[in-house]
């Protein structure tokens, strides 16, 4: 907004200065033309006289003209001045009047004209143009000063006029950033001005209403399916379990492993539904009841201890680095779940002989919790996609998984107001959770 105002100011200044320059040029041209007319008239009069009368006529003209205004000279063939009150040192070729700078012939600037007589002598006529030069200088000074003044005034006016709209743009930007971060319930501020900004804000709000409605519709349908199917599935599981526990009079013993497999399958489906509903709950709840100051390092140490046997069994080196004493604000149980999910993912994709490193480091007023591995990584174009529900990267292949782990991580991280980033660890993947440090705020 301010840049637009500044650009308009510059354009206005250029236009104003240009206008003044045109007026100045025309004025000077007019004054010069009038001087040239006078010179031409004088020259015409002198050239029409017999050569013998010229010295006397020139002397008479000098005597009668105002002191220092008009200059006349008759120069002989040998270059000597026969009569006159000045002498031109050099004469340009061609006809017509020309300008002589101050000090060249006399102390003042002149407009001069020269006529050659048939006998080789020449008549020189000149007129003081100090006033024209003075006008030229004054107009230049006025142009420069008025240009600067116009720029300053225009910029000040621009700044003052754009303060209000700039404040509104800043408010819109702040809301837009929150909406981009997932706060889809927020709306752009609309004033009573009804101007272009309000028009745009209104259009964006209408768009957001529609997006929110569609998202709610899709999510609601998914959640409703998950919720409604959970109860009959729970009943099914109870019945399968009752079937598995029947003794003697139950079904053929060969059915027992089939029933056990069926229970495992039902559990898988229930687990997916539970994870799905959990993500939805986290996304909408925004609960902060369990939030407290936490040192992330002991959490990482706990998770490292928890997963060490699994890493050992798979021949993966699990290491822990970082510093104690960084304090962040969050829900300990949920953060444990985040780190656990990330480590579980890393161990899933890193092959035997690979490395997984957990760390927490300070970065200014932020604490960065990172899980780094040297597995296949996730291509850049898939990194945002894998945070969605049921999305898995191309490197996942046939590795077991629901495609909900990172989605759950993203929901928890978002709920905390932290940022989640997936980057290339060259080789492998590094997942960073960046958190505001409480110890720095204090």
């Amino acid at each position, binding site marked *: 907004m301010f840049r637009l105002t500044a650009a308009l100011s510059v354009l206005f200044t250029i236009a104003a200065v240009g206008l003044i320059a045109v007026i100045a040029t025309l004025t000077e041209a007019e004054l010069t033309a009038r001087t040239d007319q006078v010179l031409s008239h004088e020259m015409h009069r002198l050239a029409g006289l017999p050569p013998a009368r010229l010295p006397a006529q020139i002397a008479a003209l000098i005597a009668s003209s105002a002191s220092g205004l008009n200059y006349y000279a008759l120069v002989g063939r040998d270059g000597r001045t026969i009569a006159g009150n000045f002498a031109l040192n050099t004469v340009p070729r061609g006809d017509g009047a020309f300008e002589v700078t101050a000090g060249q012939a006399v102390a003042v600037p002149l407009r001069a004209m020269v006529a050659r007589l048939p006998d080789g002598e020449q008549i020189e006529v000149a007129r003081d143009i100090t006033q024209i030069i003075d006008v030229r200088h004054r107009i230049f000074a006025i142009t420069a000063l008025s240009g600067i003044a116009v720029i300053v005034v225009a910029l000040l006016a621009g700044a003052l006029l754009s303060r209000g709209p700039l404040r509104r743009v800043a408010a819109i930007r702040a809301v837009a950033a929150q909406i981009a971060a997932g706060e889809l319930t927020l709306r752009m501020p609309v004033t009573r001005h009804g101007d272009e900004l309000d028009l745009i804000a209104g259009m964006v709000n209408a768009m957001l209403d529609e997006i929110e409605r569609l998202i709610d519709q899709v999510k609601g349908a998914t959640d409703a399916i998950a919720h409604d199917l*959970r*109860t009959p*599935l*729970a*009943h099914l*599981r*109870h*019945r399968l*379990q*009752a079937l*598995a526990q029947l003794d003697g009079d139950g079904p053929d013993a060969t059915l027992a*492993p089939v029933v*056990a*497999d069926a*229970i*495992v399958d039902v*559990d898988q489906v*229930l*687990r997916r539904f*539970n*994870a799905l*509903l*959990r993500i939805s*709950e*986290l996304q909408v*709840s925004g*609960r902060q*009841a*369990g939030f407290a100051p936490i040192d992330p390092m002991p959490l990482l140490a706990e998770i490292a*201890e*928890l*997963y060490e*046997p*699994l890493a050992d*069994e798979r021949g993966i080196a699990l290491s822990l680095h970082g510093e104690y004493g960084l304090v962040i604000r969050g*829900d300990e*149980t*949920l953060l*444990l*779940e985040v780190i*656990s999910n990330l480590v*579980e993912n890393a161990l899933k994709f890193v092959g035997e002989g690979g490395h997984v490193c957990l760390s927490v480091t300070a970065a200014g007023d932020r604490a960065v919790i990172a899980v780094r591995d040297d597995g296949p990584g996730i291509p850049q174009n898939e990194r945002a996609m894998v945070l969605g529900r049921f999305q898995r990267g191309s490197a996942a292949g046939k590795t077991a998984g629901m495609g909900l782990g990172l989605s759950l991580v993203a929901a928890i991280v978002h709920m905390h107001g932290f940022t989640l980033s997936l980057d290339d660890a060259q080789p492998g993947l590094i997942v960073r959770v960046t958190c505001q440090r409480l110890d720095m705020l204090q």
Partner: protein
Amino acid sequence: MINVLVVEDDAAVAAVILGRLTEPDYATRHARTGREGLACAQAERFDVITLDRLLPDMDGLTLLGRLRAEQITTPVLLLSSMGDVGHRIAGLRAGGDDYMVKPFSPDELAMRIEVLLRRGREYPADAVLRVGGLELDLIKRQAWLAGEHVPLLHKEFRLLEFMARHPGQTINRQMLFEQVWGYFFEPSDNLINVHVSKLRRKLERTGHPSPIRTIKGEGYRLDPA
């Protein structure tokens, strides 16, 4: 005999609970609505109440609040299909003593009821837990299998201790994760399997078979003999 009040509107779930809590160990009373449950709890004294979180006429937490307001301190085991940590915390904060997510194993339900009843009882200072050939010194945190010492890490000892406290009962992975590690999120099957396998290998190093059995689709069981 343990007196249990079962407040559950879902007939299928109620059948599972009542089918597991049978005589001679349990005496049950079934209430199908919140009002009926409240009336029963006010009229009789129970050892444990299992309470469904969502009832047709009253929210389970409201009923729980009424019970606690009337100084009825009977341990309450909340049952719910809402398994999020937030719901668990809300349930426990409202006065619940434990929280189970549906669907659940009937054995786990029975086990949680036992744990609730045992809560608050102190073990004798020289307590030694013996299950078959397994012997656990709860003070020195030492374990023996058939007289052979089994060196265990802290968490491994807690895992074995929890199983030894419930011999012959199937314990699912989620319950182990909650009771031994104190985590309420869902672990991968592999994670708990690896910890149990490691414990099993340590027990087998004594030259005797491990008493821990895997029950497919369910969890683990420590054989009493």
